[in-house]
């Protein structure tokens, strides 16, 4: 019953917060409205999200989030340097397949997203069975290192979060 009422509790929470951010004020009326929407919208959209991903370690989530945020800042500086100061012919671009241990679609998506948002890499495509991600690296001399870092820095943490 509760499951049907709140099929995605995290989503509902996000929506409530999202509503408050949207109206940019915290009043009781908006809180009530936010809760209504936070429950109502997932109920209506539940058919489009048949599964229910399980997130185990909220702290890990925060940790992961901060790491990624930091990496993004760093990544941007690095990439900016490459763009601004490196001659085109000195840029060594690489395709790097990264085999995945993750099985959850949500986890794979977060990983691929992270790869794209962080240092010099873009996740270009997945294998047809989702078991490997093809990463395009803007500039590296050591593809294996890049792959290993992805696996150790992000994938391992995501494994803990999603499984």
């Amino acid at each position, binding site marked *: 019953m509760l499951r049907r009422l709140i099929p995605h509790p995290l989503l509902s929470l996000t929506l409530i917060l999202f509503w408050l951010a*949207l109206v940019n004020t915290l009043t009781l*009326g908006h809180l*009530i409205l936010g809760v209504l929407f936070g429950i109502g919208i*997932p109920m209506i*959209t539940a058919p489009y999200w*048949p599964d229910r991903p399980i997130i185990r370690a909220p702290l890990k989530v925060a940790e992961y989030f901060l790491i990624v945020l930091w990496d993004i800042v760093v990544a941007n500086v690095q990439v900016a340097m490459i763009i601004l100061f490196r001659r085109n012919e000195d840029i060594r671009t690489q395709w790097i397949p990264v085999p995945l241990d993750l099985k959850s*679609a949500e986890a794979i998506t977060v990983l691929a997203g992270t790869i794209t948002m962080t240092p010099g890499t873009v996740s270009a495509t*997945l294998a047809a*069975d989702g078991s490997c991600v093809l990463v395009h690296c803007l500039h590296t001399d050591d593809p294996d290192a890049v792959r290993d870092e992805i696996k150790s820095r992000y994938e391992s943490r995501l494994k803990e979060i999603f499984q």
Partner: protein
Amino acid sequence: MSDSGHFLFLIALLPFIGALVPGLMIRAGRTACAVFTAVPTALALILLMTLAPSVMRGEVVQAQVEWLPQLGLSASFFLDGLGLLFATMILGVGLLITLYARFYLSGDDPMGQFYTYLLLFQGAMLGIVISGNILLLLIFWELTSLSSFLLIGYWKHLPEGRQGARMALAVTGAGGLAMIGGMLILGDIVGSYELVDILAAGDQIKASEWYLPALILILLGAFTKSAQFPFHFWLPHAMAAPTPVSAYLHSATMVKAGIFLMARMWPVLSGTDAWFYIVATTGLVTMVLGAVIALFKDDLKALLAFSTVSHLGLLTMLLGFGTQAAAVAAVFHIINHLTFKAALFMTAGIVDHETHTRDIKRLGGLRHLMPVTFVVGTITALSMAGIPLFNGFLSKEMMLEEASHTKWLGSYYVIPVFATIGALLSVAYSYRFIVHVFLGPVRDDYPHHPHDPPAGMWLAPALLSVLVIVIGVMPFVAEALVTVAANAVTGADLHPHLKIWHGVTPALYMSVFAIIGGAVLLVLHAPMARIWNASPRPEAKVLFDWFVNSVAGASRWISEQSHNGAISRYLAIFVVTSVVVGASAFVGSGLSAPTRGLLSVPPVIAIGWFMLVVATISVVVMHHNRFRALVLIGVIGLTISAGFVYLSAPDLALTQISVETVTIMLLLLALHFLPKTTPKESPMGLKIRDGVIAVLAGAGVGGLAYAFMLRDIDTISDYHIANSYEGGGGTNVVNVILVDFRGYDTYGEIIVLGIAGLIIYAVMHALLDGPASRRLRNIDYSQDRSRDRHPLMMVVVTRVLMPLAAMVGLYIFLRGHNEPGGGFVAGLVIAIALLMQYMASGFAWTQARQRIEYHFMIGTGVIIAGLTGAGAWLFGRPFLTSSYTYIHLPPIEEFEIATAMLFDLGVFLTVLGAVMLMLYSLSRIARYAGETVNLEPMDYDPAKPATGEKEDN
């Protein structure tokens, strides 16, 4: 109105009422049909006869009912001597023709139709002669053209019949139209269209500067109807009609309408040089020419037709003389011509009916086989020839008498000489009619062996031939009628004496010369005919056909060249017209002094402008690659949206950006089925032309905008700003305008969207149900496509994003009244959110989880909006009157509830439903074309491993 007035109406109406009957009666049998045709005619004739005594006393019977007083048109009838004469002729001959036709027409002919047409025609003709209002006369005039068209074309299977009918309609119709002009001018001069007023205003009319145009226009009507040169050619071709028709139309009625008109207008229009030279000369030429042609016609009916032309010329000439004596002669000859010509046509019809030919060359010797017909034919032909003791002689004599002393362009010889020639020719062809048809030896090669027809057929001509002799021998019997008619024509009080012997006058010499000369001509006929047939001469029908076909061909060329399906050219003309006409309107006046300075331009705005211009030019340059053009359209939309933000129009920005996206989606969906490139096919010249047009249009519109942006003006919107919050309950003035001040516009606007959804759905079905579906089936999807339809990442992100986007939609909806937003944008945002879901997991998969039908959503939206508007009625207020209130439910802070929001909900639902129905329809087409439907939300979910691992890499 007197009883006699009522009778006049009844007389006018009877044929038309009667016309309804034969068509219905035909099942009762042909005789019954004929009887029921005769009844109204006879009734009308009887009624007419009851009026006759007073008319014969010189009174005028009048009756009038207002019809269209604003125009001066009344149902006004007017029976004087002239009218009586003609009405009697029309009804009398009508009866005879009814009788004759009963026997003449074959069983295969639809007789009901025939009698209906005949009565219609009779009614129209009768209307002309008793009209008391010249506009009413015009109406009957045109009706004769129409009904004669039906009669002449009665034998639909004969090409000559159809062509003859069309020719008659074209020629007499043209004349009728000219006459409309003439009559309207007359009415303008006199200030009334009543005949009484017109007839009383002769001097005023002749003094008017508009006299000549009016005269010419009216004469065009009369001449065409009465087959005067050069409009004479239609009449012989009308002979393709069944003989009863010819006998009726071309002796007593149709062709006499023109003569009647000239006689009717005689007091008003005649007596001037213009009248004399136009009318008399035309008549003279027609008389001679018609006679010449008649002499050489081998077709009996053609001979009679041209003789009719000739006699009509004679009548026209007489009227053209403009003297009272000539008018008397004309009136008398009208009667005489009627009697012998109607009989002659019927005789020719009998011959045709019996021998199955009308070709004189194949006839001869019928005297023995058809004695009755011979007698009738001979009597009437001799009358036509103008032989003494037959009535034709009397009026012809009077004509010659008048001709003998009429001066033409200073010459005393022109008219007498030509009149004599005309008479002589008339004698010749009349003799020929007798000699070559009836006399001579009996032949054994008639197409059909002839004998006299049943009495029903010869009775009518026989009756007329009796009249021919009676009047010929005792002309005084016609004197009263001629007198009263002639007095009506001339407006004088004449007392003519009709007698056989006038003494030895120039006319007698001319007559004798004609009678003898005619015989000589007949003797010389064979060699002369050879010469005639060998000599080249213009064939009127060929010329006419050439003319009509040229005009029709030219018309076809013009309309097909101009309406050639090239919309690009239509649009070019439209744009050029707008620019040229707009520019000319602009330069026709000046501008007030500018009142505003220019706003400054920050660099980023300049960049935005540059982007917009470059993107626009790029779209034009690169439009051949359609996808590229769509990307560039995206740039333009983005730039304009940002520009709206900068220029204080946040609502516009929101709307523009969301509409933009949905539009591009639709275009992409459509482009999927369309060619991906536009061929470069416009020649350089066309490109330059279009470029010039485009630049002109752009300069015009830009210049216009620049001109008004520099000038301030008071607008009504100060009121909107002042009353938005107090009156409309919202601080977003734009939104309050949309849902309140001008909510009615918005109501219309959502209906446009709803209709759009319906149409797209309907087109989709039309395509899927029609031949296009086969083409769709053949679209090959397998090639060149990426293999991931519904990528995992997209699906996952959408699961989060879509609810967020939906919430944004709700947010924008709820705040619209006070802040930028509103139902429309909200609808689009939700639609975009759904679109996201469709793109992620496919339309069908998503659709299957959709609970609300889009049709229903649109309908509900439109109805909610409408009901919200109509809700105001309950409070006695007009549609869409809004109301709002602030609700305070502690501990929640006060919030507003407004009916406008309910209206906005209608907007929201309609927009959402319409957009989704559009997408649905396009998706249906794609699926029909072979697109497969996925059963899972994403291509492959690694968390749910597949059973059969498959080698692929």
